[in-house]
């Protein structure tokens, strides 16, 4: 016997199924959510109030898959580059957040530039990024630009290190400069830069916090475990998305982010900067490179069957 739509027991089950359907993107839910609910109710025993585990797993997996597929629309080049630019812009803002009390105007402008990048407002994002970038490079170099800023800038929260104490001006230039280059890069087939998820804001505390400690404190280029966890999780998710959709936009985004990181670290380790990488740095860098390679190779995997 299957569940009907009238019984009180069913309403509990139906409510639970509706919650599970939230795994699907809103446009799909609006178009087909009721249809799926109808089949789910017909397929489930009437005396059940808890959805069967196999249906729960199917809905969660189906929802994630549908979300990823919905994300794979539009120009691969433009969207992939925008993804990488977004990640770097968010990391640039996260670098300023612990010092917001000392440099409120520049942190606010950086937040506005991230908002513009997320919404796809390219021509708003570029001047904001340039303005914040010039100030950031000045702070890193100990120069005064636009307003008097006492250097070093000491943190108010999340870290105990002074602003850009482990960055040369040239690495800050690269981090902001490549965001502008990425925003300016023309798409071969045109298309619109679409808005990205609000969840990017949630990445900021993970990137800004310098804990829990993993590397020896004295090292002049520490990487926090919170940052590592986030970067590895996002790149692993990108690899899964590439696998599911056979789309290269996630590889492009990861490669852009990795390029900014690698170029920045390479510049820092020039003899005049005196930074020496530890084996932990190299191992972590190799892991990020491996995940980026996975996002590029998984979409090219052999097809198992005609409709794969």
């Amino acid at each position, binding site marked *: 016997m299957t569940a009907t739509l009238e019984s009180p027991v069913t309403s509990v089950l139906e409510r639970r199924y509706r919650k599970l359907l939230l795994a699907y993107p809103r446009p799909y839910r609006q178009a087909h959510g*009721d249809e799926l609910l109808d089949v*789910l109710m017909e*397929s489930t025993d009437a005396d059940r109030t808890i959805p069967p585990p196999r249906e729960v797993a199917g*809905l969660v997996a*189906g929802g994630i898959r549908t979300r990823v597929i919905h994300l794979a629309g539009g120009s691969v080049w433009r969207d992939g580059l925008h993804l990488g630019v977004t990640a770097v812009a968010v990391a640039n803002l996260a670098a300023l957040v612990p010092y917001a009390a000392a440099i409120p105007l520049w942190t606010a402008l950086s937040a506005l530039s991230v908002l513009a990048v997320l919404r796809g407002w390219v021509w708003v994002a570029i001047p904001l990024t340039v303005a914040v970038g010039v100030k950031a490079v000045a702070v890193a170099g100990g120069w005064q630009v636009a307003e008097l800023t006492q250097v070093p800038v000491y943190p108010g929260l999340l870290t105990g290190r002074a602003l850009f104490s482990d960055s040369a001006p040239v690495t800050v230039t690269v981090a902001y400069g490549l965001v502008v280059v990425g925003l300016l890069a023309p798409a071969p087939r045109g298309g619109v830069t679409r808005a990205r998820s609000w969840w990017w804001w949630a990445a900021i505390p993970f990137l800004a916090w310098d804990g829990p400690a993993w590397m020896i404190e004295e090292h002049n280029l520490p990487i926090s475990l919170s940052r590592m966890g986030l970067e590895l999780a996002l790149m692993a998710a990108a690899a899964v998305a590439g696998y599911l959709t056979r789309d290269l936009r996630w590889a492009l985004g990861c490669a852009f982010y990795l390029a900014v990181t690698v170029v920045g670290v390479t510049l820092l380790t020039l003899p005049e900067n005196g930074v020496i990488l530890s084996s932990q740095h190299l191992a972590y860098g190799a892991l990020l490179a491996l995940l980026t390679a996975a996002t590029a190779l998984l979409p090219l995997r052999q097809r198992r069957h005609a*409709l794969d």
Partner: protein
Amino acid sequence: MPRGTSEVSEPMFFVLTALLNGPLHGHAISKLIQELSNGRVRPSVGTLYGILERLHERGVIAVDREETVNGRNRRYFRITDEGQALVEAEARRMQDAAALVLRLSPGQAQAWGLWGQASRAGKGPLGTGPGWRAPGGALVPGIARG
């Protein structure tokens, strides 16, 4: 039937097969798949609709019509000409694969009482003759014709 073939995944094969007799909605497809596979293939609703969306996107099934039942929209899917050609090609491929196993496996042929018959004619399972008739009347081709 193998759990999956090199051309079409097993659940997709059953979905296409279920639609051969006419358009069906999601729940009816699910029930028919279970019936056709003797209960072995039971995709969850999330999995089934993932398959339906992908088959629809590839053009092997199409939405035949939409009906409103209990105030909810219900899509009826039908197989397209391309889908029918695909599932028929897959069925022929599996039939050829099954014929090959029956022809090359003495144990299987003996179990079906075919070995002696084939050997007497000088056209054993590994022979090159025109083949023999398997139970059910299907002609199993000889290796030279395979």
